[in-house]
């Protein structure tokens, strides 16, 4: 693997790479940087790199009449519970699906994958009607169900792919040694599944945390999530950019860190197990 490394002339490679890095990072860096600028600097006609940093926007997020706390709590609880349910049920189903020999398994798999791929706009319409009928609008339960509609099939599918990678010999050996099926699962299989479980959980959480369309349609005054807080500020006349950029930074940073932590398994996760 030494020779093929030198594919491109050094200069071309460097220039292209710098361009791609700039394209990717400039908006993010500019957002984080600007969130520490006073509003007068943010809205100045010429962009400024040097300024006296201020924490006023972050301070304003968590104080005053329209604090971000309730939004943050809503986001954490709704995304957290839907992730927990998806991962627990998805793990059980994934183990079962991976080990079972079933005639219609192909159709079952197709059904699961197509529910994951269903366009959100198309799912929202009937769900809105059902939620209205069942009084689930503006409730945690409603949004949790909405997020499960894509996170549950995702978790089942992904855990199946992770279990497929684990040869059944291990749990069979344990069972020959006298372990029950549950013991073999709990003490032999599950510990080996930690990367799979963590990856699935983090991805489910990110999908739910980042959702806007469902929250916009199904949430009400008591269940609005952080993306809704950002959207509300964005549609006001006279946008408070400082506050908005601070919210952006708060929404983005934890997810970027969490995502990069499981980078090693991310390919498998985001391609639904198609690439190892």
């Amino acid at each position: 693997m030494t020779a093929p490394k030198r594919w491109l002339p050094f200069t071309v490679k460097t220039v292209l790479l710098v361009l791609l890095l700039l394209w990717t990072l400039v908006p993010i860096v500019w957002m984080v940087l600007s969130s520490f600028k006073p509003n007068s600097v943010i809205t100045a006609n010429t962009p400024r790199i040097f300024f006296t940093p201020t924490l006023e926007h972050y301070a304003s997020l968590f104080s005053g009449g329209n604090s971000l706390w309730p939004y943050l709590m809503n986001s954490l609880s709704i995304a957290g519970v839907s992730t927990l349910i998806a991962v627990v049920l998805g793990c059980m189903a994934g183990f079962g699906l991976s080990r079972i020999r079933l005639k219609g398994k192909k159709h079952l798999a197709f059904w699961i994958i197509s529910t994951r791929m269903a366009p959100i706009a198309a799912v929202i319409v009937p769900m809105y009607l059902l939620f209205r009928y069942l009084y689930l609008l503006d409730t945690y339960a409603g949004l949790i169900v909405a997020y499960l509609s894509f996170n549950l099939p995702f978790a089942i599918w992904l855990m199946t792919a992770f279990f497929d990678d684990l040869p059944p010999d291990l749990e069979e050996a344990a069972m020959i040694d006298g372990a029950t099926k549950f013991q073999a699962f709990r003490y032999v299989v599950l510990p080996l599944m930690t990367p799979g479980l963590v990856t699935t959980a983090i991805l489910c959480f990110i999908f739910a945390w980042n959702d806007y369309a469902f929250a916009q349609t199904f949430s009400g005054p008591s269940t609005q999530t952080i993306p809704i807080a950002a959207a509300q500020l964005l549609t006001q006349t006279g946008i408070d950019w400082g506050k908005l950029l601070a919210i952006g930074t708060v929404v983005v940073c934890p997810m970027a860190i969490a995502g990069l932590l499981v980078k090693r398994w991310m390919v498998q996760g985001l391609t639904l197990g198609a690439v190892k």
Partner: protein
Amino acid sequence: MMAPALFLLALITLIPFFSIIWMSFNDVSLMGGLTFEFSGLDNWQRLFTDPDIRSSWLISLVYFLATVGLEMIIGTAMALLVFSLVRGGNIVISLLLIPMFIAPVIVGLLGRFMLDPSHGLYAWMLSESGLFDGNILGSVGSALIAVILMDVWEWAPLVALIVLAGLASVPGDILEAAEMDGAKYVQKLLYIILPSISNILLVALLIRAMDAIRFFAIIFITTNGGPADSTKIIPIRLYDIAFRFFDLGYAAAVGITMLVFSILVANAFMKMLKRQEKTA
């Protein structure tokens, strides 16, 4: 062990599925309580004659081809460059991946911030260099390009990540032999590298194809379909029909056509998986 998950999944997907089909044959009204009035094929007939729907599908097609196409090209370029790095590749790919963890609402927010006509950094750079002066998100043409580029910015990294995983399987000895025979980089790329990652490229393409029609939050938050409907892709149109005009029956019919599209993509994905199992 599978029963609880499959039961719950059936509950939360099949009920909406049959509801949307039933809704598409009804005139659904929310005024003064929920009422259904059977209207036969009215919604469907309208769907195939509505010029607004046709233009939205057309814009969707342009949006779809441009985003997915650019994401494939830029993502593959990113992967090739990172793969060719002797050291530091891990850090570079980590940095390149960040956009895909960002909530689409925040991507839209960033787009509006960078392109703001009075103080946006990119808007400033474009007007100072004389390339574009004016309200980028407020003008027909430039608005569509802008929302396309925002989507590309967020999702090209995913293609990069997938392709990078595939590049590990490019046969090193064949590359080496080609190099000794004096092959140019472009030749190696066209005849060795790309053919050996064609399967992976297909995975990336399908994954992006299904998500390109799933999400619409970036446009929602930046232009909401405007100006003059120039960025009104089909999910945005559907949302308008459903929640601005409250014509839920008609929205259901539009939704079903979108579902058909995603089922076709899912079908292609399954076929590709099967093919991969055979070759593996």
